[in-house]
């Protein structure tokens, strides 16, 4: 099989020409996201070009510490996105969420590059960075879903939480139903993807291996391994994210501290009502 074909300026121009179709539809129907779509395409291009140039350097140097630093920066950026996405107080949440994300990404990446791929250098840029990025992206999405589900559900159903405490539950017992729901909500998209993968769409990693000239069966084995790694990573991240933030979010009485929400809308029942 041929190796991957590089895309020249003409090829890229052809890709951008495809934009005519969605932009024409947006214009014709006056869908109010035309400007947003234009900005998104420009941002995507600039961001990816920047990352491409940077990764060329990182790949050329291939220094373990530099690769580790790049992964750490990726985790930090993802951490900020999660805190913003969940509308949580950054000072309280940034560190525990960073640790959860780091553990949820690092463990599957190390297993992938080590026992699965058996690479001599566990921090080899060619493997660690793309695989880390794929796992991290999924962890980020799952973390936002899980954390929002957990804290917003408790805030909405505070009476139910109080009832559990009043009935003698320890904090962990009182929070268990919401913990269960949050993990379910966070993992459901990954579970659904695993259940339909290959039937509905060919996933990114598999496509990449095939485009790179790999055998389809090799591509499938890579895809199976990465899906399992993503499933493990998201489960670890969301579990740790909730477990590590609970102590900072509830007071000594087991009551939810609403100051955890960055811009908490005041609702009836926020505080003891007369």
């Amino acid at each position, binding site marked *: 099989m041929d190796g991957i074909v590089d895309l020249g300026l003409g090829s890229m121009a052809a890709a951008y020409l495809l934009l005519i179709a969605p932009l024409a539809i947006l214009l014709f129907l006056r869908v109010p996201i035309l400007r947003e779509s234009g900005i998104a395409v420009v941002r995507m291009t600039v961001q990816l070009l920047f990352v491409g140039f940077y990764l060329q350097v990182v790949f050329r140097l291939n220094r373990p510490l530099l690769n580790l630093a790049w992964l750490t920066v990726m985790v930090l950026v993802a951490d900020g996105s999660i805190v913003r996405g969940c509308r949580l107080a950054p000072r309280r949440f940034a560190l525990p969420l960073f640790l959860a994300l780091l553990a949820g990404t690092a463990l599957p990446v190390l297993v992938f590059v080590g026992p699965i791929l058996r690479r001599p250098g566990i921090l080899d840029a060619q493997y660690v960075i793309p695989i880390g990025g794929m796992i991290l992206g999924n962890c980020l999405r799952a973390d936002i879903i899980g954390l929002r589900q957990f804290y917003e559900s408790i805030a909405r159903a505070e*009476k139910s939480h109080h009832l559990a405490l009043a009935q003698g539950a*320890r904090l962990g017992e009182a929070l268990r139903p919401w913990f269960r729901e949050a993990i379910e909500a966070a993992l459901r998209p990954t579970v659904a993807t695993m259940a339909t993968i290959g039937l509905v769409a060919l996933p990114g990693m598999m496509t990449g291996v095939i485009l790179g000239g790999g055998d389809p069966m090799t591509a499938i084995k890579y895809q199976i391994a990465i899906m399992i790694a993503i499933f493990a990573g998201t489960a670890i991240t969301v579990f740790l994210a909730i477990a590590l933030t609970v102590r900072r979010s509830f007071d000594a009485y087991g*009551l939810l501290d609403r100051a955890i929400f960055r811009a908490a809308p005041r609702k009836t029942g926020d*505080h003891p009502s007369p």
Partner: protein
Amino acid sequence: MSAALELEGLGVRFDGRWVLRGFSLRLDPGEKVVLTGPSGTGKSTVLRCAMGLAVPDEGGVRVFGEPMDGRSVWALRRRMAYVAQEPDLGPGTAGEAVRRPFGYRANAALRGNLDRLPALLERFHLAPDLLAKETSALSGGEKQRFAIIVALLLDRSIVLLDEASSALDADNRKRVTDGFAADASTTVLAVAHDETWGRFASRVVTVPGGRG
């Protein structure tokens, strides 16, 4: 003899305004006290502070002589039961809501009390097939009766009732008060407005609310 429940100079502030201030009350074991007062004077807040579901800005709570704080509240809650005015029984069916507290480690020894459930359902005019109904589909009166049943099954020494029978008809309301009145050992602090509760109480206390 130490009091079953002591509230000492309770003060709770919300949005810079005192919704309750300087409220004190002492309940001897077995005593039945009803709290009254106009809306907004902090009656529910008194119960929530007593149960450790709100932390007072001033004053404190003692349960059988033990002061309530972030450490002791967990054990003290296990000596009390609380029924809110509009109880949220949590997710699942009514049967799951009734059985859920007996899955908590603190209540493990009380699991046998569930044997009393059929008799309590009958006493409060609840059909057994309601246990299979989702809690979200129960009426306000059914939720209140299930919440009272759980409170009774937990065999607590102190029961805090926040307008716990407001959605019940006169007959069911009387069944609730008669049930608690017959139990001389249980201390009851109830927020209520109607006469049935007035007749049930050994003492009626008016909550003056906040001042400023």
